[in-house]
């Protein structure tokens, strides 16, 4: 059962939701948002695409396998804590610097890891559920 309207709009929704999720991720440190919420919104975006255009399309849009994405997220979150060991002798003590007047910290790297784990985690089994359905 494919809805023409949903299929037509899905890519637009997907793009908006993905952009929204990244925006939520980035603003998280100062405004409501962050990796967890961003990841959930992002996963919902991919879910919309999968519902409307099929799991294969959604998988291609994700590029990476969801499980790989999840693992990469964990690894990135881990790596973001390493500079803390080097400078302050304590894991996950975040470091801050500024680049061209914008304050940047390793927190955003950590939050990106959280985002990736949530997106990968949700999609890893959701794609499977929908694939089984098609079969």
């Amino acid at each position, binding site marked *: 059962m494919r809805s023409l309207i949903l299929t037509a709009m899905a890519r637009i929704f997907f793009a908006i939701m993905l952009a929204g999720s990244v925006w939520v991720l980035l603003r998280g440190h100062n405004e409501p948002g962050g990796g967890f919420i961003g990841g*959930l919104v992002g996963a919902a975006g991919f879910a919309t695409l999968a519902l409307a255009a099929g799991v294969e399309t959604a998988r291609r849009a994700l590029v990476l396998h969801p499980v790989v994405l*999840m693992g990469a*997220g964990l690894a990135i979150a881990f790596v973001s804590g390493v500079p803390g060991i080097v400078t302050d002798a304590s894991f996950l003590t975040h470091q801050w610097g500024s680049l061209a007047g914008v304050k940047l910290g390793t927190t955003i790297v950590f939050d990106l890891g959280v985002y990736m784990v*949530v997106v990968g985690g949700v999609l*890893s089994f959701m794609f*499977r559920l929908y694939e089984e359905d098609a079969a």
Partner: protein
Amino acid sequence: MDLSTVLLASLAGSIAAPFIVARTGAVGGVIAAALPAALFAYFFAQIGAVGAAPIIDVVPWVPSLGIDLTFRLDGFSLLFALLITGIGTLVTLYASSYMSEKPPFARAQFLFYILMFMTAMLATVAADNLVSLFVFWEMTSLLSFLLVGFQSEDAKARKAALQSLLVTASGGLALLGGIILIGIEAGTFSLAAITANPAPVLESPLLPAIVACVLIGAFTKSAQFPFHFWLPNAMKAPTPASAYLHSATMVKLGVYLLARLDPVFAGAPWVGATLVAFGGLTMLIAAVQALRAIELKAVLAYSTVASLGTLVMLIGLDGPVSSVAVVGFILAHALYKATLFFCAGIVIHATHETRLRALGGLAKLLPLTAAATLLASFSMAGLPPFIGFISKEYLFEAKLESSLDTIAVLIGVLVNAVMVAVAGVLALRPFFGRAKKPFEVEHGERPGMTLGPLLLAVVGVTFGLVPSLVSYALITPAAIAIYGAPFEVSFKLWHGFTPMLALSGLVVALGATLAWFWDPIHLALRRRRAFDEVFLDRGYDLVLGRTLALARSSTKVLQNGDLRVYAAVVSASVTGLLAYGLLVGEGPLLPAVAGEPVRPYLLVVCALIVAGCVVAAAVPSLVTAIVAVGLSGYGLALVFLLNGGPDLALTQFSVETLFVVIVMAVLLKLPIVAKSSRTPRERLFDATVSGLFAAGVLVATLWIAAKPFNPELTEYFAVTSVPEGFGRNVVNVILVDFRALDTFGEIAVVAFAALGAWALLRTGSSTKRTGKEV
């Protein structure tokens, strides 16, 4: 070089070694042996310095908990370090020759375990902080598990490995409890500080608990009654590992710890009496079992258990001589027992025969092995001029001088006579006895395998002839280190005509008689099956079996695969706990609720939530139920939003949305309107459980709301969030910065849970395998 640097180098070398061994042939073992040899040289060079004062190296680890990686090398640690690295060198050489027929990977793996074990063992005996000592202690247990189960295709080896791990690791847990209690009472985990000022521990009302925990830890590790059974079973390990771990070094760790804590426990005489009782009992059991054992390695294993019992008994005895006896016996035993294990390995390797009574006439085929065995067994029998003789003289002197002399001497004479007999039979039977059938020796003696036993055997004679070699350099500092105060040590061969000499003579005479009548005694004892019931691991099997049965039956009841049962169990337990807290706790059942102005919009939202719940419980259509649950969820998110929790609300909204999307995928496979499979009675039960659960949560929530809110944390985060976390969103700053480690743990949990679901949902298999469910 600092001690910590040396240990780190040892670790690095142990990790690098297998890569070298796997890529080189026979030379690889020699290269790998360079690591323990270099460490031996390092520790040897420290003898002079340690004689003057202990070497201390402080490395902070978890200062907030009083845990550090302080390493302290005194006489006793140094003796162990030299044994570990010295015998470690020979074991590495021996093992690479013993394993030369094995594929390179297995060879590399084995040497890796051995070298890692050596590193862990060195760290254990060098650690001053009890908590870090415990960590390294458990590392040795794990490596022992890997080595016992090395021939993993053998089910018996796997069982023995599991048994050794379960016994030593559960004992380790008891030890950890003891260590924490000691730390609480003494205010420090430092061994040196605790033994220097034993009063807080000795006067503590918790002393019986501390002693019980430490003794369980030490007894499991050192195979004392009633945990003695795992060591003979651990002989499934390849012989080099048996020689190293289960005779010369690891099993002595329990003794090591008891000796270390002796200055503390000496203040409570009943501890010493307990040690003498358990040590004595272990000695007797091991002596009987040594006479009954069939296999060559089992005989050696039981004699090791007897020796460990002897050491435990010696530590329990009072007086400074017992310290000398402990140190002397540790050295003598390591030298001769490692030799005997090495030789047993050569014999088994060459003949593929493991039974002692089947062996014979091997002196012509394995002459060097025969010579080494002969020398080592003389030392074991305590004949002059071997080091075993000197250590036995001290053993009897310590027993005679203690306040428990009669019983200690009696057990000592009996068990040592058996050890003399065992030594005689081990040396004579396989090499000079008549063989039942002529043996084909597959491969003769290899230099890598004979070097170790010969060297150790010769060292045993040399130390016996010239005791001054070890007396001042090793024995004296080690004995003083465990006695806790300096005293005059005389470690020499000839003491004149003393009661000890008479006892030695008696022991040798008795032992010779036993050895002469070995066969009839062995067979008569074997026939007594009752010993098997008492002395073997029946108790272990019983406990393990019962535990597994309990796990199975509780799983059958609590986790039977029906989701409703899970939900009922969880909510009933939570309700029960809440009810207990509310009924037992102080004050009235319901708190006084402060009057608050009613906010109409919240009432509307709450009505929405309640409506969602009622509909979900009442409708037969699953789709309607899902939508209704979603309604409740959105209502809850609105409550968060209206009460100033935008992050929480946003998360809740996203989760609710995704929930519907995910559940839809499942629902597509189910009938739209499902006929309820629950009987009215079951539904009544469900309603009761959920009603009580709701009531409990309501009362608990009222109580939480009634308590005055402690704003300390809120204020702390509000103030520090921007200057320290550089973010205005306090929730996010807590998540990614203040409590980042928690978040890291959480995302790891999310990842693993998702991985589990993903694996279970493998396409096509889930419906087939689980049958009617899904």
